[in-house]
Structure formats: structure tokens, C-alpha cells
């Protein structure tokens, strides 16, 4: 349906308009580069937030399959207290439970360094043999451990770094206020840096040593871990444990998963909602820049209309202008944020998301980008932009030729 004047193809027409839009944007480069820079920044920040959330969630979920099915703790008066040996015999008898393991763990606060360490007691021979050997850098201090096997431990890299600063690389002197003398613990190895994310603040020691440090009596444990082979039954068994022993609380793996997700979603939401202010400021800027047509621009549009451009044509020019800006800003912003997060490892932003600590792991974020994120980024930036840009564009497009005919 070719009208005689539209002799060129649709494609060529659009291309001509794009040419013109680019040319006119280029002629007003100060204003347009300001908008572009703001836009890139906005998309950069939004996508950084989504990328970092996605990656951290993936980090958390990477080991989720290895988590215990049910963790059982004893609560009295709203506090977690030690759990007695008698419980796990009873829990093991619940049908569907494969095994129950007691655990000994707790924290150790070192005032000089203002650091909290996690102490975990286990049979270290398990790590010293078999495939688990691979996760530890075995140190030269192995012999010290051999002298007093119950006081040997493996520490995380972060702990090791801190202890180096106070010259306790090979052994660490544990001391609690009520003790008469300090107990030296031989450090037989360090967990490899690959496992830093989990092991950074860990001091894994032989069960007896841990008992001593945490001052747990024989037959007392921090909590219990229940293995349930059939995932369908987990929930039911957790419920049964709580029914039989109301003083116990159970944490299932599914609950941990959902805690993880909501922790980071909550933060992304928080950052995003504080960013709504930024988005709003950006929109105000766009509105201001776009609606306050300069007399020169207004004259230009008047001229175009006087020489036969119709309103739709001007609207297409404006459409292409905002489309091109959005396209460039989206692609550039997303790429920029990729390199910021995964090459530079998000300096500044990472701290907001993972909190702070004395022993901070220097882990690298592993990229995890779902195409969904891109949709999210587009929705939260480009849609408000085009919405706000449409009204000034229309205002510009309906400029009357009267304007130039009369005001000269």
C-alpha cells in the first residue's frame, strides 16, 4: 500500500530517520551525553545489584545438597543449650531416620583481634585420610600434633592470616578467663583457599580438644544432625521430633534454603528500593531535559514541520532517540557491570551485600547470569524512562509551524 510520496521502502525510511535522530543528538552532544552517562550509571548499578545477588545466592546454594537434612537443637528459655546424649538414641529410633550424629561446635572470641572464630570438633583422622586430604594444605607442623593428638587443629585461611600477625602460626594458645593455664593447640594444616567461603573462620579440632575449649562435659553436645534418606519424609520426621520433645527445635534443609534466598532477596530489595530515589532523580532529569525544549530545538522542529514532516515523523525521531539511548545505555551498562563484578570483584558493593567482618574472605564471585536478570534490568530502567520520555516527545512533536511563522 504505497502512497505515492512514500516511494522509498519502509526500512530506508526508518534508516533515514535514525540518521537524522543521531545527527540531531550529536549536535546536542553535551545534553545527550549527560543523559547517556546517567543512564549507563543507573543500569550499571541496577544490574550490579542483580548480578551480585544472583551470584551470592548461587554460592550459598552450591553446597546446599551437602547440608544435613535436619539439625536438632535444644532450646530452654529461648536460648540454645547443650543437648544430651540421651536424645539421639531416641531420635534414631524414629522410622525413616538413617543416622544421628552429635556435633560439637561453638565460637571463640579473641579480644585482641576482635575476631570471632568458629570452633568445630570432629575426628580429624577423617580429614587426614582419603579424598578429603585434598581440601587441606598440610603444614610442616604435623609433628606437633602428633605429640598431643587431642590438641591438634586445622584452621581456615583467614584465621591463619590473623594468627600470623600475632606470631602464632604453628600453634595457638587457647585461654579462657576461668582457666589456670593456657592450652597450646598445634596447627597441622590450613584449609585450601578454594574453600575459603566456608572455612575462613574455622578452627576444626579434635573432638576432645574442642570439648575442652568449649567446656562441654562428656555426654553433652552442641546439637544433633539427623540424616533422612528420603527427602519426602524430612518434614514429617522433623515434626515428629518436635512432638516428642517440645524443647527441641528442628531446622530442615528446606528452611535453610529459603532463609538464604530471602536474606539476599531482602537485601536486593532494600538496595533497589533505596535506588528508587536515584531512579526518580534520573527521571526528573530526563523530564527536565526533554520537556524544556530549547528555543533552538523548538525552532528546528517547527522548520521540519513546515517543510513537510508530519507529527508522526517527529514522534519517530523522538522514539528513535530514546530507543538508541536506551539500547546503548543498556548494553553498555550491563557489560560494564559484568566487568565490575566479575573482574574487579565488586569493590564497594560486595561489602554492602555480605556484611563486614574482621576475618573477611577474599573470595571471587562466580558469575551466574540468567537471562531473566536482563529482563528485570530492562523493566526497571528502560520502561520508566520511555514512559517519562513520551510526554515531552509528544509536546515537541505537536509544535506548530505557527511558532516559526509568527515569531521571527
Amino acid at each position, binding site marked *: *500500500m504505497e502512497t505515492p510520496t512514500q516511494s522509498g521502502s519502509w526500512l530506508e525510511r526508518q534508516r533515514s530517520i535514525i540518521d537524522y535522530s543521531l545527527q540531531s543528538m550529536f549536535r546536542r552532544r553535551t545534553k545527550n551525553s549527560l543523559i547517556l552517562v546517567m543512564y549507563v550509571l543507573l543500569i550499571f548499578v541496577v544490574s550490579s*545489584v*542483580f548480578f551480585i*545477588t544472583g551470584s551470592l545466592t548461587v554460592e550459598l546454594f552450591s553446597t546446599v545438597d551437602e547440608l544435613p537434612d535436619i539439625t536438632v537443637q535444644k532450646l530452654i528459655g529461648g536460648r540454645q543449650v547443650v543437648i544430651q546424649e540421651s536424645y539421639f538414641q531416641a531420635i534414631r529410633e524414629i522410622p525413616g531416620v538413617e543416622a544421628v550424629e552429635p556435633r560439637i561446635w561453638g565460637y571463640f572470641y579473641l579480644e585482641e583481634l576482635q575476631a570471632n572464630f568458629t570452633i568445630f570438633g570432629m575426628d580429624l583422622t577423617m580429614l587426614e585420610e582419603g579424598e578429603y586430604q585434598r581440601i587441606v594444605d598440610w603444614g610442616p607442623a604435623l609433628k606437633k600434633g602428633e605429640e598431643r593428638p587431642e590438641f591438634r587443629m586445622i584452621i581456615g585461611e583467614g584465621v591463619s592470616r590473623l594468627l600470623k600477625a600475632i606470631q602464632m602460626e604453628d600453634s595457638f594458645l587457647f585461654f579462657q578467663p576461668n582457666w589456670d593455664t593456657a592450652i597450646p593447640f598445634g596447627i597441622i594444616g590450613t584449609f585450601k583457599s578454594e574453600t575459603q567461603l566456608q572455612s575462613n573462620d574455622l578452627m576444626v579440632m579434635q573432638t576432645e580438644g574442642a570439648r575442652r575449649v568449649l567446656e562441654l562435659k562428656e555426654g553433652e553436645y552442641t546439637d544433633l544432625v539427623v540424616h533422612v534418606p528420603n527427602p519426602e519424609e524430612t518434614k514429617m520426621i522433623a515434626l515428629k521430633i518436635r512432638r516428642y520433645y517440645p524443647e527441641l527445635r528442628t531446622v530442615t534443609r*528446606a528452611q535453610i*534454603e*529459603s532463609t538464604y*534466598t*530471602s536474606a539476599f*532477596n*531482602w537485601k*536486593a*530489595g*532494600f538496595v*533497589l*528500593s533505596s535506588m*528508587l530515589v536515584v531512579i526518580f532523580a534520573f527521571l526528573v532529569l530526563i523530564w527536565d531535559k526533554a520537556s524544556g525544549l530549547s528555543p533552538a530545538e523548538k525552532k528546528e522542529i517547527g522548520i521540519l514541520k513546515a517543510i513537510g514532516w508530519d*507529527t*508522526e515523523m517527529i*514522534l519517530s525521531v523522538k*522514539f528513535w532517540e530514546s530507543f538508541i539511548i536506551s539500547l546503548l545505555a543498556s548494553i553498555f551498562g550491563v557489560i560494564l557491570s559484568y566487568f565490575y563484578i566479575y573482574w574487579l570483584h565488586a569493590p564497594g558493593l560486595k561489602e554492602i551485600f555480605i556484611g563486614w567482618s574482621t576475618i573477611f574472605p577474599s573470595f571471587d564471585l562466580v558469575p551466574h547470569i*540468567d*537471562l*531473566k536478570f536482563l*529482563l*528485570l534490568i*530492562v*523493566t*526497571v530502567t528502560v*520502561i*520508566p524512562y*520511555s*514512559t517519562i520520555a*513520551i*510526554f515531552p*516527545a*509528544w509536546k515537541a*512533536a*505537536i509544535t506548530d509551524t505557527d511558532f516559526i511563522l509568527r515569531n521571527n
Partner: protein
Amino acid sequence: MILNPWILTMLTGHAALFFVFSLATINAWWIFSGWDFTSSSEKQYGLEKRTYLVSSVMNLTLIIQMLMLFLLVMAADELAKILPGAMCATGSLSSNKYGFPLLMIKIGSFFIYFVWWVLNYLDNQLEDYPLVRKKYLALVCIFPVMISETILLLLFAVNLNPTVIASCCGSIYNESSAGLGGTMAGSSPLMTLTLFFGVVSIVLIWHMIENIRGYRPTKKKGGLEALLWVFLFVTALLTVISFISTYIYEMLSHKCPFCLLKAEYNYIGVPLYFFLFLATATGLTKGVLQWMGAEGPLGEKAIWLRRRLGQMSIFSLLVYIVVGYSPFIIYYIRTGRTI
């Protein structure tokens, strides 16, 4: 719950949508009530200018609505991670009673906007704007749909409750479960396939008859055609649930219309639904155009437009069939049997 980024994004996008649509509606009302083609008063001239605003705003609305439809499914899928028991979009959407109505109203309004958009395009090509009052009145009439969509979205977002156990697609699209989903999944593939391909062949035959010289399009036939496409859309969805999905997941028990949009299945659902929606939208619009009296007052342009829409709908339908049924064919060639 409101602080979830997906919910926030949906609300932001919908706020934009609502804003532009309200703008369009207000202007549409002004134009509708003040339009006088014979007058050359400044008021009429101003209204003429407003038509451009409505047009460009509605272009944007259509695009945003498409994005938002997609986003709703994606968001529902993502929310499933937080809602206990939900495994995919189905779970989140069914976790409260507003989810599925929201999805349906979104699909419906997408088609309505599409039809309006085409009518507007056609009208703007004609020198005397024959549809002008009708189309703006229609826009004002669509507004309640928009409002109910907004209310549903808000209700859905507010009532998303992580403590209520949701269901997964395995239980909703399960032959043994009650409710619409169960009925859809339970209907035998043979029946839905017969139904779907029956409608498809009627559409194809219809298309061929139309191209025969001497075919007389009437209002009634147009309406019938539009209805036929709606029916085709529904049956196509039925086959997706009861037949196509089983070959994409390669599991007899997995019947879900949403999971196939995931990366695990190479986003195969994206082209599948895209072409289904395109086919339905264009086919539906073609029918509506005829119902509006395309051959009479709307003239040459309408005939041309109808032909283009017809070609587009048939083409998209065929692509949909190819995309949707190739997993089955590949499976059949590989194993020599059906699931």
C-alpha cells in the same frame, strides 16, 4: 514480601503501564466527547494533536504489556524459590487465589490492546478517520480491565505469603488432581490433539476459501473467525499441557506450561508462546476487522491489512506447530515410540 526485587520490578513496570494507560484514557475521553470532524476550531485542532499522544502512548502500552506478561511468568518462577513447596511458576501463581486470574487478565488484555493497536493503525491511515469515535470509546471501555488488573496485581503481591505451603506443577497439572489444571492435564492427549488439529484445519481451510474469488465477507463471518482463533488459542494451550510438554521434559508425569520457559529446556517455550500469541493476535484481529465492516467503509487499506494479518497468522501458526511438535518428532525418530 513486597521487598522482593521481582515484586518491586513488577510493581514499577505496572505503575508505568497504569500511568501511560490512564493518560491515554483521559485523552481518549476528551477526544471522544469533543470530536467534530467538520469543525476547524482550535479545539478540534488541539484534539487532533491529542490523537498522536494516544497513539504513541498505546504503542508503548502494548510493548510494556508484552514485557509484563513475560515478566509475570518469570517472576512467578523466581518467587517459587521462596515459597515453600512451589517448584515453578505454577506454584507461585496458585499460592493465592489472585495469581491465575491475574495471568488470565494479562493475556486477555494483551489481545485487546493488540486489536486496538491494529485498528488505530488502520484508522490513522485513512484520511477521514472513520473509526475515531468508536476506537476512543473502546479505549475508555477497556480502562476497567486495566483497573482490575492493577487491583489483582496488588492483591497478588500483598497476599504472597511465604508461610503458606504452595503446590508444585506436579500436583496441579496432575491427572488425579481436581480443578482446572487437573482437568487440562487429565484430558487425553489424543482428544486435545484431535481438537487442536481440527481447529487448525478449519482455520487453514477458511484461509483458502477466503482467497477464492467471489468469497463474500460478512460481519457474522468475521465474528466467527475471531471466536475460532480464541478457541484455537485455548486448545493450543491444552495441547501444550497434555502433549507437547511431556516430550520437552521427556517425563510422563511432568506436565507444566511454565517450566518450558526455563533455561534448563533451552528457553524453548519462548518461541513457542511467542508464535502462538502472534498467531492468535493477528488472526483474532483479522476477524475483528471484518466484524467492524472491513470491506465496506474501511476500504482498500483494510483489505490489504486483513490479507497481511491473515498471512502473518497462518505463518506464525505453522511456526508454532513446527516448534511445538519437533521435540515429539525427534523423540519418535530417536526411540521409535511415543511416551
